[in-house]
């Protein structure tokens, strides 16, 4: 009887050391990628192992890293990725690099956080096609993982703890020190003359309307073909409308980050555009109503090369 009286409602909130960044804010549409201040190394290591483990897929064939290769732009280079049983997905793999700075995850922004995102591919039948119970079972039987979890303050293998580890790893996948960051932080030699011209056009012509902030994108939704016509094939995917059913959300996608854009082709949500030139041309036309001259196009594409940074080595 007294047990009922003394019931406690305090939940277990284990304070896990979180990833801390050192942000620098400047007067510019584009903001530099922050530096990593501190991480929970053990957790990150475990997260990395989980990220690379095929045990997280139904038939132990693919891992997170199969489609999101951190050293290759954070994705796989295919228009759409191949999941378990060689099933094809319907959208281009978004890069995992700098994804922590996106305001939402997935093309349609259906996940608010990285932690929320993890469950998506796990359950998607054309991606990893499994569920947490199976994964927990498999990991418990694995000698490395059962030991590694035990070392983490004797943590149990649970979906929550797996997600926590993977998220911690993903939080370290950032690419600071891109030429553009160095430039806007004051190193005027970081960009070539052509790239400086490209940056002026990028801002003057209104690209920074959507592609701004730390991720040069990734912080708002925008509609495909806002100003002018767009190739019909790009409009078959209704994007955010599929989630909200709201007419306003037809063909609305999360503005993708342009960080490391040279490594993340092919482009757009369906990976249907192979080159940056094509992509820039379509964007200028449909989103801003502008036809770019060849030199302008070359300048802007040159600038896009300055958006690639270096993957942080933490361990």
């Amino acid at each position, binding site marked *: 009887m007294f047990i009922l009286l003394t019931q406690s409602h305090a939940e277990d909130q284990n304070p896990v050391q979180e990833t801390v960044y050192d942000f620098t804010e400047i007067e510019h549409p584009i903001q530099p990628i922050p530096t990593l201040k501190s991480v929970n190394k053990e957790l990150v290591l475990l997260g990395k192992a989980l990220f690379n483990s095929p045990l997280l897929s139904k038939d132990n064939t693919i891992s997170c890293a199969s489609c999101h290769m951190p050293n290759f732009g954070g994705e796989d280079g295919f228009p759409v990725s191949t999941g378990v049983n060689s099933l094809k997905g319907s959208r281009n793999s978004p890069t995992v690099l700098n994804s922590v700075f996106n305001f939402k995850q997935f093309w349609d922004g259906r996940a608010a956080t990285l932690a929320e995102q993890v469950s998506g591919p796990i359950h998607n039948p054309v991606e990893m096609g499994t569920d947490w119970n199976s994964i927990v079972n498999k990991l418990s039987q694995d000698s490395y993982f059962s030991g590694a979890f035990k070392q983490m303050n004797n943590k149990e293998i649970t979906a929550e703890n797996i997600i926590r580890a993977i998220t911690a790893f993903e939080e370290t996948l950032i690419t600071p020190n891109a030429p553009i960051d160095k430039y806007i932080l004051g190193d005027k030699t970081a960009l070539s003359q052509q790239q400086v011209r490209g940056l002026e056009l990028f801002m003057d012509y209104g690209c920074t309307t959507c592609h701004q902030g730390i991720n040069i994108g990734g912080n708002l939704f925008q509609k495909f073909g806002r100003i002018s016509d767009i190739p019909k094939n790009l409009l078959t995917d209704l994007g955010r409308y599929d989630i909200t059913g*709201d007419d306003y959300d037809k063909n609305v996608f999360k503005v993708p980050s342009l960080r490391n854009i040279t490594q993340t082709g092919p482009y757009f949500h369906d990976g249907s555009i192979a080159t940056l030139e094509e992509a820039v041309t379509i964007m200028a036309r449909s989103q801003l109503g502008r036809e770019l001259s060849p030199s302008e196009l070359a300048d802007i594409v040159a600038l896009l090369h300055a958006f690639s940074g270096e993957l942080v080595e933490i361990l």
Partner: protein
Amino acid sequence: MKLLKYLPETFCLLTLLTCSTLLSYTQYLDGKLHNTREQLSKLENLLPQFQIQLLNVNFSDHLHYDDIAQLESQIEMTLSNMDQGTEHAQLVKSYLDLSSLYIQLVSMTKTSLRLISSDKVHSDNVAKDKVTELKQLIFKFTITPQDKLRNEISTLLAQTNNANNANLNKNDWTLFTLHTNFILDNYQTSAMQRQSLIVLPVVAKTIEAIDEQYARQAELKRNELVGFSGCVISILLLLLVVLKKQQVVLKTTSKELAHAANVKSQFLANMSHEIRTPMTGIIGLVELSLKSNLTEQQRQYLEKVDFSAKSLLTIINDILDFSKIESGHLHIEKVPFEHAKLIDNLTMMLGRVAEDKHIELLFDISPNIPDSIIGDPVRINQILLNLLSNAVKFTEKGHVVLRAELQNEDGQDFLTYQIEDTGIGLTAAQQSKLFQRFTQADEATTRKYGGTGLGLAITKLLIDLMQGRIDIKSRIKQGSTFTVRLPSAISHTNKPNKTSYKGLKVLLLEDYPLSQEVIQNMALYFETEIDIASTVSEAINLVSVNSYNLTLVDWNLKTESGIDFINKVNSHGFKTGLLVICSAYSKEYIQNSSGIQFSGDYLSKPLTLAHFEEVLDKSKHRNATDYIPPKLITKTAVKPTTVTEKETTPVKQQKVLLVEDNEINQIIVTEILSNLGLSVDLATNGEEAIEALNHNQYKLVLMDIQMPVLDGIEATKILRQQHTNEELPIYALTANVTEEDINNYTKIGMNGHLSKPYEQQKIREVVSLYYQITNDNPDLII
């Protein structure tokens, strides 16, 4: 029936169950509420920040949306930790959705306006004018987005397009047209959205929701309180019910127990009575038999029967008393009685026992106790007898004192008795259970001292019955003091006038300081002069120079006896006045045991005031010179004459010199040797032995080692200077027979040793080396 019996408990338990469920449920809700409130507070903080950022989005210096995106994320996270179904959560959600749409449009319109204003789309003046007019109209529209203005701009745009098609840079014009159209299509929408975002009461609703949470929490607290107090009350009720039931059960049980105890006591009383009747018969008949002609053996047997029977009777009496008191059948009488007689009675019953143990038993009875007191003399006697006999029983040396006086407190008279002993004492733990029946201080004591353990329990009960009090002070190995206070009434206060014996002179020969003190106090009371001597020689000195009316002589002194004093008085012809022998032994006993017949007065110890007065009175009527000293007539020759008294005798071949200070040992060895046909000359120390050897020759000296004046070792050393061990064999009589000791005896020239306790056979063997043994009687019992 059974169910009904447990109805109150069931009711309490059900109430407890209900209340505790309520309590834990409210606590659960409280936890949830707490969480919700926390999230709401976060929202209360985040939403205004978000709102400000949102309304700044259309400003040209708002370069990027990281901040607002971050705030939006935080708000969404907060929302996801809350109940999504509430009206408030829905409102916040729709607010966020709207804001998302607004940002999409406003970020574009901002760019469109910038592009329109900066682009050079004209090539001639007409076109330039038109474009300028269009730009003005568009800015006007952005300030007041009305349909009329929109139509106007649309028309103008179409006209310009048609009229100046050729004059316009196609690329620039297309850009201009597209963005103008975008503004026309969307600006009103975005303005409306902005308006909606401003008016949506999202912050107010949040605050409202917080208030609501507080209200709910207050309600919850009330419920929690109800639940908690319900729990407490039902637990208390349950306890109460259980205790009440227990009480009822206990009451019944105690009634049954009381009845059972009563039956038991009654049974004991009856049994004791039934046993006592035949016991009395036994004792009476034994006493009669003892008066008839009996052989020595028969007499011994019967005396033992008598003793055993009386012991048994005592125990039975105790049990009877105890059960009587327990069953409430013991009645305390209130009759007038003579206190002095009561004390006299105690003297008779205890004096002898104490004297046998060589303990001083003293009565220090205050003269303020009147002759007649109202009370129960039998029971007071029983109390005192119990305490005193206990004291004597547990005291090995020293004294037992009974002090009595009358005290008055708040008009009430109390008889206060104090029984002090120098016995084994009691620990605090032993004191605490001293008055429980059938217990003695400890098991070991019980074995050593025997007894039923009823005595003190009865004493306590009797004192309780008299509304008295008993206290004990005791220190282990130092002794105990029992103090008894009994409320009493004085039957008549007018004590007969005290006779003064002023002018009489008393001499006291007594070696125990406390006894001296007590008798001195008595003398003071009677106003007589008193001189005190501790030894015979002191007394002789006093007698030689003073003249006394009365001389009190203690029979048992430390090393001497009353006889020594009388002998010396007689031999010197001193006057002692009335000479009174004091002893706890009866006169007859003294005469029998000492073998001396003495004429003269006798007082039993412990001395009482009344007895003292008696002898004072007697002495008053005589002159000191009138006194005829008591004659000592030696009845038998059992007691050996001492060497000092002995005249020089011729050498006797059958004589042994025994050097021994202990009287009992003297008797035993003398007995053994006389059984062997030898006579004994006695020396009580080494000096006397040397003296004796100067006058006499002995074939054998038996020498005790530890003696006063000159011990056996030193005496032997001196003797060996004159006599070799062949001329004079000396044997040690000693309890010290370690190898070291024996070596020492040999070294100083002793011929051998005889160990204590004495072994008759050994003595015989040694003696036979030097004497012709005539009367060999090995059956002698020692």
